[in-house]
């Protein structure tokens, strides 16, 4: 158990999956944050019909386990894409969509429901007295948002956004169910090839913990450095 040469070989193979996992996590993070922010803004402004739609969306995506969302996306999206493409007159075979795109769409749909909550929490932490002060100084709405609200809201959201990056990294590990190779799937493949299961999984555990540590430390630094000038 735990022989050095096997560990080294496993580490090299599993590390090779890290860049792609990080790339997928970044794409998911960007899109889910954009969608979540739109949701949160719609709720903040209290837009009638959108508000109910967003509530239903959140209930649905928080109640269903992510594996099932991923599988639903995997079996449901390709026909949908094909159908939508045929509506605008493009002959596109939806079943040629790469699996990782389907995974990213599924995870984004699920995480967006939680990101909306994060952004809403950050918006709620904003002191409305400052908005009144800015208005009395003659700021326009755009200026108010850009100069007063945005810088504070972003800083308030940093800890939760860091958390959600880690959640996305972990959520992508379910991609092995639809044959997307990320850190976890790569450790499974490596283990299946040389039959040293525990070793490969322990290496994956260590890699995930190191990434979590690095991400949290970087976010803490960023938050501290931004807080100085507000």
């Amino acid at each position, binding site marked *: 158990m735990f022989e050095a040469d096997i560990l080294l070989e496993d580490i090299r193979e599993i590390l090779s999956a890290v860049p792609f996992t990080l790339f997928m996590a970044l794409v998911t993070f960007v899109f889910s944050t954009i969608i979540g922010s739109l949701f949160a803004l719609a709720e903040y402004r209290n837009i009638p019909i959108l508000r109910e739609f967003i509530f239903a969306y959140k209930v649905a995506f928080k109640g*269903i386990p992510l594996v099932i969302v991923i599988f639903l996306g995997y079996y449901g999206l390709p026909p949908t894409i094909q159908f939508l493409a045929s509506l605008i007159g493009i002959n596109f075979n939806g079943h040629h969509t790469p699996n990782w795109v389907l995974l990213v769409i599924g995870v984004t749909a699920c995480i967006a429901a939680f990101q909306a909550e994060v952004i809403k929490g950050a918006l709620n932490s904003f002191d409305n007295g400052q908005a009144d002060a800015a208005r009395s100084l003659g700021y326009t709405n755009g200026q108010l948002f850009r100069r007063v609200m945005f810088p504070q809201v972003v800083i308030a959201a940093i800890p939760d956004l860091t958390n959600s990056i880690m959640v996305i990294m*972990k*959520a992508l590990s379910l991609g092995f169910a639809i044959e997307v190779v990320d850190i976890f799937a790569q450790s*499974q493949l490596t283990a299946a090839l040389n039959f040293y299961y*525990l070793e490969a999984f322990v290496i*994956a555990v260590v890699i995930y913990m190191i990434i979590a540590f690095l991400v949290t430390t970087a976010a803490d630094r960023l938050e501290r450095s931004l807080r100085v000038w507000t």
Partner: protein
Amino acid sequence: MDLKTMIPELMTALPLTLAITFVAMVAGFCLALITTTLRVVHIPVLSSLAALYVSYARSVPVVLQLFVTFYGLPLLVAIFGMADFFTPNVAAMLGLSFYHGGYLSEVMRPAYLAVDRGQHDAADSLGYTFRQKMMGVVGPQAVHIALPGYGNALIYLAHNVALVMYIGAADVMATAHLIMQRAYNQYQFETYLVLAVIYSIMCLIIWVIVRYFERRSPMYVPAVGPAKRVAMPSL
């Protein structure tokens, strides 16, 4: 696809799913209590071990935790000659307990820390013992603050039970896969929709129960609103 035969067949696997959830719930709660105590009361080596355990449970995907439990613990218990004890179901229960314990301790610790410092001091100055202080003064307030987070933790636990299929436990997901294979994989999307409905109902029931306690808990606490914390899932 025939719902009339499919749903009863899925229901046969429900007891196991609920059993895994229940064991993980109870064992995870005990683990979380121990871990939180170790982290709040500073004991040199033990509290850093507890911190390491919490960061393991929170930063590693649950599937990976399940696999580590499934492959790792048999080696551990083989020392005591009980390796046969390790069926996938037991591994699933243990793996999810570890996960839930670590996640829950990050709900309990902030709740404990959120209780006003003055309350501790007041209880101490009245000569309460640690146990009296916990049961009578700090505990009820911490429970009130922790309840929303606890409800979320339970819902994520129920979600993650859907993953035990991958280490070979015969839960609802695994039964659904059997049904799909029997139908030559024609109705996968529909079967997953049915699963989604089943899990949504499970989460709804958990939410209603927790909501009931949330409504009741403020009666022990004078005018302390629950700490608004953003809930992020753990997968």
